[in-house]
């Protein structure tokens, strides 16, 4: 194909057997699994693939609380090979405890993985310092998890996108969905800024926009969007294991050597605010820097070169909704409730099965159904305080003397 003809988009057939709305990590993984299975699949993305929180997160793949945990752990070591593109996946996770209380918390949480057959190893301060030379002299210890891991979110979303194209799947970017057409109790087409796309089955994996789209089907999906942010430093010498966190932070050292960490206050947003060029970062980055300095005292001189923010959605219990609806019965709702990246190999496979077979054969998803929120109060966000907050007067400022 000459570059000349490559630049002129060919008229593509509109629609597909399965249309996935949302080119984030969850939707792309679902579409890739469908394409792998030979299903005619099309992804509609309002902007660029992986542009929002899917490409802007801590890259962690260690979620022992999830019913998809085993599949997450099984799949990640194979993903580079399965996708054919590098994800920068690295195995293992080290939890650093700055004090005994944090160590107790790490023990309690890692026990969840141990109870599922995974192994951990307690690290005394000396052993921890050998593995993580950036920690300080007063560190309490750590736990080495022989499970979990981390990958590069940006590279991974692109890997899903390319892999699905390699298998015949299609992606239409810059197609904003404004409606879904129902006929005889089924979603039959998706109406976008680039026209109408017919479908036999529909997956809504549009992150914070999922509620608005489900609303077009008369289905209420209770999610609240929020902004969260991270900072990243210049590269420092690469440690043996980059998946190191603790001290109130999540994150990793990249294979390049950058330290990328997040945590701290999030900001709840209105759903209609969700079309910004990018999400803003805030002075919270100074509290992040403070905790990074405390976690890695030997890196206090290392320079922060960037920050970024992403917008994620949460359900009322903070757990995913992965559900094939009863009505319309050819629609799958998929939100990972702010913990989507690491679980994406497994969530995509589950969603693909829900879309094709109506059930998932490797994990029990019953508790992730939408029906659990049936009795939810209409003002649940207000009750939880999951709504935008503005200071009155100057009351969020402490004036230094």
């Amino acid at each position, binding site marked *: 194909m000459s570059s000349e003809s*490559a*630049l002129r988009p060919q008229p593509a057939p509109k629609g597909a057997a399965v249309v996935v709305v949302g080119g984030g990590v969850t939707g792309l993984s679902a579409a890739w699994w469908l394409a792998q299975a030979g299903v005619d699949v099309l992804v509609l993305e309002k902007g*660029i693939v992986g542009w929002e929180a899917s490409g802007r997160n801590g890259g962690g793949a260690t979620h022992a*609380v999830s019913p998809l945990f085993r599949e997450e752990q099984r799949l990640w070591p194979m993903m580079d090979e399965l996708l054919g*593109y*590098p994800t920068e996946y690295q195995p293992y996770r080290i939890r650093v405890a700055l*004090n005994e209380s*944090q160590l107790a*918390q790490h023990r*309690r*949480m890692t026990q969840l993985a141990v109870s599922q057959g995974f192994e951990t190893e307690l690290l005394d301060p000396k052993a921890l310092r050998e593995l993580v030379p950036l920690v300080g002299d007063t560190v309490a210890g750590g736990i080495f998890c022989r499970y979990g891991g981390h990958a590069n979110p*940006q*590279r991974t979303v692109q890997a899903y996108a390319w892999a699905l194209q*390699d298998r015949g799947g299609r*992606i239409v*970017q810059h197609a904003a969905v404004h409606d879904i057409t129902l006929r005889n109790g089924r979603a039959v087409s998706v109406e976008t800024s680039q026209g109408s796309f017919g479908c036999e089955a529909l997956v809504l994996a549009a992150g914070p926009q999922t509620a608005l789209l489900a609303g077009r089907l008369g289905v209420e999906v209770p999610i609240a969007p*929020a*902004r969260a942010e991270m900072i990243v430093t*210049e590269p420092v010498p690469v440690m043996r294991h980059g998946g190191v966190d603790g*001290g*109130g932070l999540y994150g990793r050292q990249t294979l390049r050597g950058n330290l990328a960490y997040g*945590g701290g206050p*999030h*900001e709840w947003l209105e759903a209609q*605010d969700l079309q910004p*060029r990018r999400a*803003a*970062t*805030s*002075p919270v980055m*100074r*509290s992040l*820097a*403070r*905790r*990074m300095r405390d976690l890695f005292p030997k890196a*206090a001189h290392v*320079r*922060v*070169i*960037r920050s970024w923010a992403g*917008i994620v959605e949460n359900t009322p*219990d*903070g*757990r995913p909704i992965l559900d094939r609806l009863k009505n319309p019965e050819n629609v799958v709702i998929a939100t990972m409730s*702010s913990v989507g990246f690491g679980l994406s190999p497994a969530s995509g496979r589950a969603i693909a099965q829900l879309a094709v077979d109506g059930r998932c054969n490797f994990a029990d998803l019953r508790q992730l159904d939408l029906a659990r929120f049936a009795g939810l109060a209409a003002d649940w966000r207000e009750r*939880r305080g*999951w709504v*935008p*907050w*503005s*200071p009155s*007067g*100057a*009351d*969020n*400022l*402490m*004036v*230094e003397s």
Partner: protein
Amino acid sequence: MPGASAAAQGRGIDPTSIAGKRFATRPHVPLVVVGAGPAGLAAALEAARLGIATLLVDENPVGAGLMGMDVPWHFGGRMDASVQNSGRLIERVAESRPDLAAAYELGIDVQLGVAAWGAFANGPTSASYARPIIGLADERRSWLQTFDCLIVAAGARDVPVAFPGWDKPGVMGARAFHALVSEYRAFSGRRLVVLGGGVVGIQAALAARRASLEVAGVIEVDAAPRAPAALLEQLRAEGVQLHLGQSVRALRGKAEVEGVVLADGAELSCDTVVVAVDVAPTIELLDVLGCACRYRAELGGYVPVVDEDGRTTRPEVFAAGDCAGVTDAALADPQRAAGAGRRAALAAAAVLGMLAPEQAASRIATLPPASRAAPADREGPRQRWLAAALAAGGDELVVCQCEDVRVRDLVGIRPPRYLKYAEAAFAGRNLHALAVDGPINQDQIKRLTRAGMGQCQGRRCRDQVQSLLAAHSNVSPGDIPLASYRAPVRPLPLGVLADRDEGPEMRDNWSAWFGIAAQWQPHWEKPSDDPAQILAPHYHLAEK
């Protein structure tokens, strides 16, 4: 801890959210001016004369550590040892700007060696600021400063141009050269070659001669000179030769610059190459604040959208001087920037209620009008320099020094070399193919190739990456969306950026992720529906 207690009483505040958090700030000032060059100084003086309490910050002198990282300009390692003495450098900067004395006399709070690294205000994805905030820092610590109005007079930045060997010490930018020679008096080179026969290049050569440095030649890619006749006459008077229709084929020297080989094979020996093809507006803070920016080729690149008085799309934020657009007329005459600064200050005075709008307008009307001179073509020369570089360096030309990204990596959207990947999988992956899926976005390419991800924060590569992306997707540079700027727009050590005055609201409610108890309960446990559970200490709370 108002947030936590309110939530405990069921009044609906999420204690782990931004609600109720407080930021430590320095005592409020109505007006902050960033940059004490001609525009910023004139703005601050005008404001102070109107009785507006004004804080004027300027990052000069830049710390030696940042200079070594080529931040904020491309210093190319040509600083002498005196840059280690920041006290002496502050004196030299003050001496180089005589108007600063007037600022001190008027009671303006002038802070030199203080960089603005971020700015925060309510916008589409944040509503939590009682007042707009600017983040400031010196070499030891950072702090936050609230303001009512902000005038950004951040000047211009270097526009690097790649050529074979441009990553060697001794290759530097025109703006960095100006700082080292004319302000810091800390330039370590002796004999230089200047790239660029426009106003920027000729001015660099003349500044070098004034400092008694040797200028081995001025190189211009175009066949005709781009500078006004008067400047060219001065150059001739200094005996400096202008090499027209030339570019750099190769660099001589192993560890450092020892000379250049021109396209025609001629060799010029030198210890420094000053890349002075052009400069571009410094818009970092404006973009971070969410002020709309547009590509204006005739103004040197992306510039803030402003009205005649420098008002941006945020009513409390103004841009004045080179950061609002670079023109040859303004580069040649600092009085134009000063006029822009005064206009912005008068308009800001109206916003601050210190002048009635009609008073401000009538005073602005007495000032010389904004430049109407026909702007020069700034894009063409840059493109022709890049084309010459590609002709000389080909696919192996380094585009991004920090991340060692070459032209072939950028065009082929290849992962960095430290990753293992199957070359065959990437056979059909390149900018042309990616453009089929939608317009090329520089931030996306940055994530894939790492071009622009390095410690210089993309300063040495963003313009040429933008040009290359445009060329390879058959669009003009202005069709490539602005690669976003993110705070901190100056690299700050963790220990400097760290908030040393963090309040108890932040500390006591810190959670690594949303403080939703059921999110961290194992899936085999039924989620608790007790709202108080949100407050329960759990794994992700970093207990002290």
